[in-house]
């Protein structure tokens, strides 16, 4: 009895210590998470509705290895190597508010750069849903000293946010393949996690061309950094209209010309 139990226990211990992949993932059909996050299962059911997914190198997430400024962690995702991308969902597994952004490109490439707040080191993922209903998931692990989500925005802390609220500055760069549009919208983007400061953030933003045709839709969540700065690849367009709302009903509406 004891004789065979001892090796069993050692084996168990080795299995438990040496292999962090959960039993469910070992036995089930789900692919193992390359970022080995304890929250991936929750992310999958909450943000991808538990639908079919693959971890796919075609979805690139660029981010620094370590967040120098937890309030402004630059993230770039690029799913333009996939055909028929309907939407991209960005999430940070270990953030207190894990939902970061949703991007629905209509006629422009599935590529976007922005900045976010991180409360601690976390995987940051972009999941692109293609026309066949499959999610293609890419990601990067970003280390962070943290605290990004529970601090008041500079605008709210200094009290001058109201004079610039919703103001847009932008520029367009002509390039051989895709022109580059960079847009900054002044907004505190308060997460609601700083004591006594309610949630106050831009909820949706649409980018249209000069004729009013929709180029892309975006849904922004609390972790997007204050005064969101976005970089997009926009085909051959040179004139744009930016429309959006925050959660208090304030409108964003601006015209960008080269």
């Amino acid at each position, binding site marked *: 009895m004891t004789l065979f139990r*001892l090796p069993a*226990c*050692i084996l168990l211990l080795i299995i438990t210590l040496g292999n962090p992949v959960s039993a469910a993932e070992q036995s089930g059909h789900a692919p193992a998470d390359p970022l080995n996050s304890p929250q991936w299962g929750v992310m999958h059911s909450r943000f991808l509705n538990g639908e079919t997914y693959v971890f796919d190198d075609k979805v690139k997430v660029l981010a620094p290895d*370590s967040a120098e400024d937890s309030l402004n962690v*630059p993230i*770039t995702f690029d799913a333009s190597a996939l055909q028929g991308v309907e939407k991209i969902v960005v999430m940070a597994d270990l953030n207190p508010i894990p939902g970061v952004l949703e991007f629905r490109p209509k006629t422009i490439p599935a590529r976007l750069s922005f900045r976010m707040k991180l409360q601690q080191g976390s995987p940051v993922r972009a999941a692109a849903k293609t026309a066949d209903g499959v999610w293609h998931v890419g990601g990067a692990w970003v280390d962070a*000293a943290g605290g990004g989500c529970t601090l008041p925005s500079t605008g709210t802390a200094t009290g001058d946010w109201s004079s610039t609220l919703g*103001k847009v500055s932008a520029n367009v760069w002509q390039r051989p393949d895709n022109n580059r549009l960079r847009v900054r919208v002044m907004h505190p983007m308060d997460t609601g996690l700083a004591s006594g400061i309610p949630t106050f953030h831009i909820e949706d933003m649409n980018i249209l061309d000069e004729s009013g045709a929709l180029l892309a839709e975006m849904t922004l969540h609390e972790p997007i950094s204050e005064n969101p700065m976005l970089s997009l690849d926009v085909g051959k367009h040179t004139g744009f209209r930016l429309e959006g709302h925050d959660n208090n009903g304030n409108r964003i509406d601006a015209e960008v010309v080269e």
Partner: protein
Amino acid sequence: MRKIPLTPRPPLPQGERGSKKDNLLAPLPLRERGWGEGYKQALLALLLLIHGAAIADTFGYPLEPQQIAPDTYVLEGKTEDFSRKNGGYIVNTGYIITADGVVVIDSGPSKRFGEQQRTLIEKATGKPVIRLYLTHHHPDHFLGNQAYGEIPRYALPASKQAMQLEGEAFTANMYRMTGDWMRGTSITLPDKEAKAGTETVGGHQLETIALSGHTPGDLALFDHTTGILFAGDLVFNNRAATTPHANIAAWLTALEKLQSLPLKMIVPGHGKVAQDKAPIEQTRDYLQWLSATLKQGAANGLDMNEVMQTPIPERFKAVALAHSELQRSVSHLYPALETDSLKPAKQAE
């Protein structure tokens, strides 16, 4: 904790346990575990003990004084980032043995470091420390101050102010990055204002040069008697310059000033001691490349991550941490540049 049954239980009928193979690999039901559980716990305890012993270091920094002049020594840190392995010993500190006692330049990254540094110096020289110079307010240069509580501690006013303002946050982050090496470390501020000018200390003609650029207050100490310059972090040698508080234009001006000194040797803040001005030239070259890269990126509409991907030029291949410092520098310096590259859009009424 759950009680372990002391009396062996009768074996269950075969069918209830499944095959023998399953028995070996699958966990037994909790209530089923007998003496085996005891072994498992003992083994776990043993593993924890071994693990604990491996990390329960003596926290001794490998301090090896390097003689660079008859009475001048350097403790050279590694050209790495902070880690639990190096305990923050990534910085150069130094000391000059004068007729009146020892002058120390920078107290290192932690209380433990400062204590070990002072003990070593007083033992090796047989003389007391008479003053401490702090080159600037970054944590790896002044968090050893606690070991010099009764010694006059000189720093530029801008450095003292910044230590006061940011010291606590630095300390917290150092605990995060190096762990127990930091035990007991808290802020001890400088208590003497370093004034630009030359002064003779125990036969050494020491010039305090007040500069800025790496931080708002950068003190360089030039010993005219030996021709040795303690450059602080205004100069890096084969280690990428760091920029969390940098003003590159001011930094380049500061380097010009250092370049003009009749010096024989340079002790950089990080990297090897040099007998020529090459580290000044390398730091200047790197900063100019960095500044041009960032400006060009903003002018071309790049986002931060795209600038962070810039390949490091061949001539900086020997420079440690160039890629990770470029990533950090983009975070520090790019936001102001890219804001300048945007124009106000036409707001709808």
